[in-house]
């Protein structure tokens, strides 16, 4: 009887033990790799939708290398064509053809207007920018509480809901350090991009700061690609078009 009681207590504790056994950092790293290879190129369309239905579209070509290097080139609209953003860790620059030289920018500024900001466009791996504060587990989901590693990161806290089977995000809520909800990202439309990359092709974003506005990010042409380190330098910003084939 005593043994039975001990086993019953143990059985009650198992979910808790299982919960604490989840390696949040490993889970986040796995999710990062499921979303994108560490080094890749992709095309993205950003659509800002206004309450009256009007839309504004941006198309970007992006490359990323390693943990902390990413660059994007605007292909549309015509007024923004040639605009380039570069990120090396916490250093961010923007190149405007009209200005003709790279300018340092911060992660919170918006390069497109609307709901997206620089951090959304020049995002690094989540595991690179966030510590895992806690992981909750249910039948089909993990819920990760993430805390920014430094004050340079645009969103201080993230609540990430993850599909347990696919290890892909379903929803991310982004909070400021004050606790205010800044935006919610909804990951949809899982698509096979080839080369073993199967991930959501659509991210819808809404924000209480932009009531009734919505932004959509569509992915295409996502594939593994290694480029030279010199691509991620100020000097190459005006020549990024050379990378496109």
């Amino acid at each position, binding site marked *: 009887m005593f043994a039975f009681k001990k086993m019953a207590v143990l059985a009650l504790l198992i979910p808790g033990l299982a919960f604490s056994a989840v390696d949040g950092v490993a889970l986040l790293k796995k999710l990062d790799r499921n979303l994108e290879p560490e080094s890749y190129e992709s095309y993205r369309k950003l659509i800002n939708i206004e309450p009256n239905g009007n839309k504004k579209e941006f198309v970007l070509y992006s490359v990323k290398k390693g943990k902390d290097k990413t660059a994007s080139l605007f292909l549309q609209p015509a007024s923004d064509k040639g605009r380039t953003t570069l990120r090396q860790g916490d250093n961010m620059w923007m190149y405007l053809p009209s200005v003709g030289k790279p300018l340092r920018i911060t992660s919170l500024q918006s390069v497109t207007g609307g709901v997206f900001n620089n951090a959304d466009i020049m995002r690094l791996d989540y595991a690179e920018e966030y510590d895992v504060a806690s992981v909750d587990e249910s039948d089909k989901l993990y819920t990760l509480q993430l805390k920014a590693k430094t004050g340079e990161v645009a969103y201080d806290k993230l609540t990430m809901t993850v599909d347990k089977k696919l290890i892909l995000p379903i929803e991310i809520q982004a909070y400021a350090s004050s606790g205010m909800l800044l935006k919610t990202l909804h990951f949809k439309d899982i698509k096979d991009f080839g080369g073993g990359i199967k991930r959501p092709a659509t991210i819808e974003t809404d924000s209480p700061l932009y009531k009734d506005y919505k932004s959509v990010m569509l*992915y295409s042409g996502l594939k593994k690609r290694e480029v030279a380190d010199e691509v991620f330098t100020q000097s190459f910003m005006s020549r990024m078009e050379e990378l496109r084939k």
Partner: protein
Amino acid sequence: MTPRPAGGAMPVRQRRHLACRMWLAGVLSAAALTSGLANAEEFSFDASEFDKKPFEFSGYIEPKLEGLRLRSDSAAFALAYPDAAPRDSLWRGTITLELAGKANLADWVLDARAQGSQANDALVTRTDNLRLMEGGVRYSAGPSLTLDAGKRVQRWGKGYALTTVGFVEIPKDPGDPTASREGFVMASGEFTRSLEGPVSAVSFTGLMLPTDGTTNAVFGKSTDLNPAAKLYLLAWDTDIDLMGRAAGARPAAFGLDFSRNIGSNLELHGEWARQRNVTRSTVSTTGVVSSSTRDTTSWLLGLRYLTSSEVTWIADWIHNGLGYSDSELGDYYRFLNLALAPGAPAEWVGKAVSLARSGYLRANPGLDYVYLKASVSEPLGWVYGAASVTWMANAQDRSWQLTPELSYTGFNGWDLRGRLSWLQGAQWSEFGEKATARKLELTARYSF
């Protein structure tokens, strides 16, 4: 709308107002139409639609309407409009066309950008035919090495409206720092390396900017190759440039600049420049010209700060070692006034014009400036809108220019901008002596 007088021509003032309204209505209708067409599309995205094309063509067309409040009694007005009767206001319409083309041929890129404009007001009609602003050929041997020959704009320095290290470029317009500029004919090479460690990137740019009396005549008229170079380092998360220009058509110069983020919302930048053996001419109130040759030092220190309410502040202090003190500028304005007065010796006007070209009437001829700009994107939830106020002051004579501005980019392809410039200063001060006291500008740029 004001009723049109029956049986007669519309008065000039009414016609101008009508023209302004039609211009604005036309711009807004076209913008709304292009925006509406975009709405008809569905969400879809196929990257192959954006495959790189061997030939690309782009450009913009930009109508601009300006209303000017003039200082008709100023010497600057008489110098700008020598044959015009004094008047207090002027409406000016300008249309600018810029066309750009690019051929992507494997490792070679051929490109050209040309601009032309037509400006009309009651005093002057000015036509600038389409001319090459930039263009040439570039060879890229990978991301690390590129060689370039053609007409190019080098943009050195970290200052927003002014720079002290722009050794091989036509100075930017502080009132509109992003306006298109014409390049100089040059040959250049750039070599870049990424490194591990605290110095994570190094880039060296070397160039030659030949002058022979015809080529690059704005830069200088002597026959020289005018070599210049810049070394860029990303070291300890700081952008650092070291630059120099050898003596030639212009004196030797060397300098440095830096830019660094101190936090997620604060950036610091600075420049320092030394120019050797610069000849500088000054004039007394009675027209006696003195010239001296000396070394000059210029510097700039600035910051950009993003507040919690999303207002970006830019503050630059600029010391222009080549500039004129408030007393030197005052003496020039007094002489200019005398030279343009009825009965003044005829050669004085020529002397005044020559001095103006030598530096007195360049965009910012003073010694010390303060530049302050506060800007906010999407103020009061106005998505795609931006508002800013810029204040630029001559720190010596305390004259200034204040420019509030609104812009909107919500219509696909369109950049709409409206701004007002208010120039204020005492008599014989820089902004107090400009020909224009107030200026309203309405601009609509359509990019294609």
